[in-house]
């Protein structure tokens, strides 16, 4: 099967449209960034608190927001985890930005959120404790059981009750939330124990599934490091390509990749309500850097090979031909990779949403920048330096093992 015949597109003559398109996308991105006052970072970069709450019943997000505001948490964000893949999720994520309360009060935000939620969902049964509360730990349950001693074990009770408490807590953890104290029997706890627990506890309407608390110092440090490490990696690639090809190829490839990252970040800004830049997004950006670089090098490699075979042709012509020759490969690879990340975007669940969004954008932009940005930059520099028609000599050591006689088979 074959989809693509021999293309004969004059890519380099269309470079001005590509540059215009990139300029437009960059402008849109920068405008969005400017309007939002910068990039929208996730908690891990910004510093703050992120608490995942699991409810027994589908929660009313509006009323929760109202109650958080009443606690002075007006700036908090609430995100429902419910989506196509998770239609029955009763989970929400409450985010609270660091407001300079300092390192000492690292978990102050979390405490306030829990307090606000407790007021929204008042305790059902006075005199009893909320079994889904974080403060009910193995130790708390064990101590409670020791004091009640439902199995009448007397003095030797401690070890046995600690063991039962561990089972019960493990069961609670696996469930996320306990909706009926009677369910605790499923953990292997004896019925007398369950009965004793029922007398002292009630199943609270919500449970804390996870919490992420990042102090402002760590956030700033992570941000600085992410930028630095990306720059180092880009510099490393620039040097390698400069050695294998020529320095302008390295520069063009890195500029194109940088352009991809900027456009992706710009689109993150544009859709900042939905996606934020977290550590996993950094991993996605690095992935797209690798991917776009790969794409660019495939074209450059072909240019280098054709350059040896067609010494008389102008570089623009050689580049056009190289892009055309690799076009079917470009479309196939990009298409398949795009498909992969698109599936990830749709099916990957909330944890991967921002991550796969970066990749979806990145693969489209990364593919396009190889022929739309990187290649024209090399040709443009070449024209600027040597006037029309001159060619860049290619460093030796490339295209080894290819006999000159193979030249005639390169389709025109």
């Amino acid at each position, binding site marked *: 099967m074959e989809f693509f015949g021999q293309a004969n597109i004059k890519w380099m003559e269309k470079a001005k449209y590509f540059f215009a398109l990139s300029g437009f996308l960059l402008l849109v991105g920068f405008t969005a960034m400017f309007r939002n006052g910068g990039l929208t970072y996730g908690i891990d970069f910004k510093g703050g608190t992120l608490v995942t709450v699991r409810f027994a019943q589908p929660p009313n997000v509006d009323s929760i927001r109202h109650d958080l505001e009443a606690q002075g948490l007006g700036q908090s964000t609430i995100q429902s985890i419910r989506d196509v893949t998770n239609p029955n999720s009763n989970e929400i994520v409450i985010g609270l930005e660091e407001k300079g309360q300092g390192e000492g009060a690292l978990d102050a935000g979390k405490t306030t959120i829990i307090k606000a939620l407790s007021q929204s969902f008042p305790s059902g049964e006075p005199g009893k404790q909320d079994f889904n509360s974080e403060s009910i730990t193995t130790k708390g349950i064990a101590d409670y059981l020791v004091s009640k001693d439902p199995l009448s074990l007397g003095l030797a009770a401690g070890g046995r009750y600690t063991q039962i408490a561990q089972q019960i807590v493990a069961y609670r953890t696996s469930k996320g939330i306990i909706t009926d104290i009677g369910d605790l029997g499923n953990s292997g706890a004896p019925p007398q124990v369950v009965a004793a627990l029922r007398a002292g506890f009630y199943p609270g309407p919500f449970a804390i599934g996870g919490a992420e608390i990042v102090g402002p110092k760590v956030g700033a440090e992570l941000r600085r490091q992410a930028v630095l490490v990306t720059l180092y990696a880009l510099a490393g690639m620039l040097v390698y390509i400069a050695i294998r090809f020529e320095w302008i190829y390295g520069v063009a490839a890195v500029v194109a990749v940088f352009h991809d990252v900027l456009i992706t970040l710009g689109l993150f800004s544009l859709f900042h309500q939905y996606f934020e830049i977290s550590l996993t997004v950094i991993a996605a950006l690095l992935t797209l850097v690798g*991917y776009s670089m790969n794409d660019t090098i495939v074209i450059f490699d072909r240019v280098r090979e054709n350059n040896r075979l067609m010494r008389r042709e102008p570089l623009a012509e050689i580049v056009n031909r190289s892009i055309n020759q690799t076009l079917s490969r470009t479309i196939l690879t990009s298409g398949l990779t795009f498909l992969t990340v698109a599936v990830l975007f749709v099916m990957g669940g909330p944890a991967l949403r921002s991550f796969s969004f970066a990749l979806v954008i990145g693969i489209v932009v990364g593919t396009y920048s190889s022929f739309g940005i990187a290649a024209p930059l090399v040709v443009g520099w070449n024209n600027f330096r040597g006037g029309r028609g001159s060619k860049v000599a290619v460093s030796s050591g490339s295209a080894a093992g290819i006999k000159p006689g193979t030249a005639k088979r390169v389709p025109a």
Partner: protein
Amino acid sequence: MNPNLRWKAIFIAVVVVLCIYGLIGLPDFPTSWATVKSNFGSRIRLGLDLQGGTHLIIQVQVNEAVRQEADQVVLGLARLLRDKNIPSDQPLRVSDTQVKVSNLSQDRVSDFRTIQSENFPAWDISPAPGEPNGYLLTMRQSLVASIIQTTMDKAVETIRRRVDQLGLTEPFVAPYGQGENEIIVEMPGEGDPVRARGVIQTGGQLELRLVQDPVPYPNEAAALQAHSGILPPGTELLPGKGSPSPSGTPTGESWYVVDRTPIVTGRDLRSADPRRSTNRPPYWEVDFHLSTEAAARFGPWTEQNMNRPMATVLDHRVELVATINGRIEDSGMIEGQFSQEEANDLALVLGSGALPASIKYLAESTVGPSLGADSIRHGIQASITSLLVVLIFMVVYYRSSGVNAVVALLLNLVILLAALAYFGAVLTLPGIAGVILTIGMGVDSNVLIFERIREELRGGKAPVSAVDLGFKRAFLTIIDTHVTTVVSAFFLFLFGTGPVKGFAISLTIGLIANLFTSVYVSRLIFDWHLGRAPRQAELSI
């Protein structure tokens, strides 16, 4: 079969068998499906983001240790100046790394310098600004750095011992970041992060000290008043838990006047164990045993101080005051109203030694195991779906040759996972990103080769030479793309932290595996296929 091909095939088979064995053959030889599953689960370790658990980033306040060193110098210097009769003001610590001596007698400056060079060689002397007879001793950077290093090492070691004893599966404690004196603690699946944090946080400085005043005071002011504003020399005031009043309820805070120097410190402990209290059930207590050297000191001391109260001081708080009833040689106990878990925790904190400096929590993240399970389920479903789509497409588009790609890609995954297992790497979400890029580049390598072979075929080459040329040429491109990416992964590994490192590791391994599968293995399948077919048969590509 051509002997050359046979050896290659044997080599590939050995690699495959080793990888599969590495993935599912350890630690128990697989005899049933259940062992295969449990082996695989134990070989591929999931990161906290996938498995659930708590991670903490802790900053060690290393300047405290530096300051302690400076304090030692102040004490030592004061003693030496006194011994040598050098007139001067009391030495004073003016910053964490500087000690000032004012009004030093002019004609004794050379003696002062001798003291410094003999006793504090890692300190530099300079005139104190604005004081004609004042001198500053400044700690050299090399000493500061070595104190920081020692403190960090000891803190990591202490925290690791404590976390290890919490009884979790594979906790991880290591220095973190660059030069920020941070430590990362990862506790997979810990159900009770509050407890873990408590255990880590406790300073764990145990001291036994003599109590000077028989009765505790309700507050600081009362204690000072009893001594008319000045405490007896060599004593200090420490807060403690209220002693139970006759009615049994604690009376809140109490203050004790105790000796400044302890007779026994945490360093003298040989072991500490929780034990059920015999006289106060259901509470627990902690027994401790002293080293021989400390016991030799403690025995005579207890005899001397018979019938006097002794305080058990933990982290500068009096935990317990007991009267010395007899000569105690090498063991003692800490009695309190401890639950079993509290007694356990205290024993493990005492057994692991004190933290060299206090710590501060910079970040904490808890992923509930069910949250982690959700993201991994979604991730795996999505990955398998997309992998299937890609594989089906390759077979449809490249026909028989597509099978090569399928074999190459699957083998790539197996090798990648096996390598992760061999290196004990942890698979995290960013690590999965690395795997995705690997698969993407694996698909690309195959497409590059196949498209090139098709090109050569269109140019009129016979299948054998088309395959040969296709591989040769595509290989140059593949090497360039792979090396470039490995170069960038190298920098990410070198300078990145945590997640970025994980990405770099799985990417590098994956790319090397990909070179092997899509070039070496796929080529072998082509050659074997071509060797069996008649010379001019068409290539299914």
